[in-house]
């Protein structure tokens, strides 16, 4: 999923999951990783996938986009899985399902938590070059996105790109002659690079102007722990991982 879409969902939502505290929402990726690490059977993985989808639905998250995001890596992951072919389709299913579950769990966290809130904690202990670059990355993505969109609009209104739909991005330019696409793509990416370099220089100036002395920490706005949400999230995590463990221990393993 594209960062602007994820960010919009995280900053504009008001569901119970959006309002839950970050400390509780961390249980979501932990659930995904835990089940992925423990399971050797597709059944628990598919079940967890479904449960997480229900959680996403309850939080009014974009289900179709989540599904697409989990499916997108399938072709390449499937290729990898086939490279381990042992005449056992369940192994393929396990490999695919592990990837889909962990992606889904991570997205649930990202779609309901604004990035500044997520960055607030790590920026205090990571080296400045990493944490603060990450903060500026977050800021810069949106500025560059706007500027890239402006360049694309400029090319479009001047006839460089044709679209079957009224609006779209250059990579959706289904009417543009093939030979023109690389040239247009090169111009767009080239302008993006130039804008990025200029932006880098202006951020450097801005840091200097604004008295930067090595401190750039987003303020943590972690909400107060809310009892129902905390119980649901941690209780759910423990239950799911526990069930996956039990399935494994009981030998309900289709992987052979």
């Amino acid at each position, binding site marked *: 999923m594209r960062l602007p879409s994820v960010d919009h969902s995280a900053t504009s939502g008001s569901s119970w999951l959006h309002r839950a505290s970050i400390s509780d929402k961390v249980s979501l990726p932990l659930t995904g990783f835990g089940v992925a690490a*423990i399971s050797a059977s597709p059944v628990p993985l598919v079940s967890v996938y479904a449960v997480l989808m229900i959680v996403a639905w309850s939080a009014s998250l974009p289900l179709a986009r989540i599904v697409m995001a989990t499916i997108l890596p399938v072709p390449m992951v499937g290729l990898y899985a086939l490279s381990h072919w042992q005449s056992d389709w369940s192994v393929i299913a396990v490999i695919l399902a592990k990837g889909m579950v962990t992606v889904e769990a991570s*997205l649930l966290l990202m779609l309901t938590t604004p990035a500044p809130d997520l960055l607030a904690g790590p920026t205090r202990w990571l080296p400045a070059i990493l944490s603060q670059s*990450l903060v500026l990355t977050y800021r810069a993505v949106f500025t560059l996105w706007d500027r890239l969109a402006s360049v694309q609009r400029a090319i479009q209104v001047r006839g460089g790109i044709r679209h079957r739909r009224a609006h779209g991005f250059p990579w959706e330019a289904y009417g543009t002659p093939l030979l023109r696409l690389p040239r247009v793509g090169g111009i767009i*990416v080239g302008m993006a690079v130039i804008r990025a*370099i200029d932006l880098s220089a202006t*951020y450097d100036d801005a840091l200097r102007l604004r008295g930067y002395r090595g401190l750039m920490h987003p303020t943590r706005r972690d909400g107060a722990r809310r009892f129902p949400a905390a119980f649901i999230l941690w209780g759910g995590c423990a239950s799911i991982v526990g069930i996956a463990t039990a399935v494994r221990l009981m030998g309900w393993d289709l*992987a052979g």
Partner: protein
Amino acid sequence: MTHIMVGDGVLPWWLSGAGILAAVVLVTIASRQVTRTGSRRAIPATGVMTALMVVVMSIEIVPIGYELHGTVLAGIILGPWFGAISSLLFNVVRAFLGDGAITNIGLNTVVTWLEMAVGSMVFSRLRPFAYRGRASLCGGIATAVSLSLSTLVFLAIIALSGVEPASAVHTGSFDVATGTFDPEIHSGGLVEVHLPGSGEHPEATVAGLTPFTWFAFATLFLGALGWAIEGLVTGVTVGFIARIRPGLIGLSAGSDGLGRPTE
């Protein structure tokens, strides 16, 4: 293209761990190199170029699920040390957006950095030719060389994921019953020959290519398409930048790779 798109819990833990360790060493060395230029300047440079890669990453060539990464372009502009940090941040952002496993961030960082570093190195070798108005060609060649090399590294990592170390092969799947990791699911090697009645494969198999080999062929075939596309776009982009802002790619005197005038 060279991006280990395997979910968490699939690659052997030792392989993912080695990747994380390699990434930590790489980024530590790179941090020391870049902070010599002044961390205040390094931070916006790496932050913005990472953002650029995140934005360019959204440009997807749909039929083969190939995404432009702009990693070689970033390497040409940033150089290897800024590129290493940018590579880590890029893969962190990508992993949390669902594009790549979190446990494979280390491996992906190393592979992405290789693209940047090799691309930067090849372009700098070809720079004398770029001065003669062939900047696009040089950019395309640097991209093709870099991506083909990183694809081979990627295949090597995938191959390693099935290699049996001294103990049993791990799939990364933790067996809570025994407290160990699952036994191998991969036969290893490129060619397999099975004699009738031997071990796990009682039926005779004509000496043939292993599934991994087919995977490698598929990857190289698709990869070649990707190299061509990204090489083309990168080449055109480099040519564009060479006309508008040659200093950005080191084609004019008195400016560094970040396009800032040198004193």
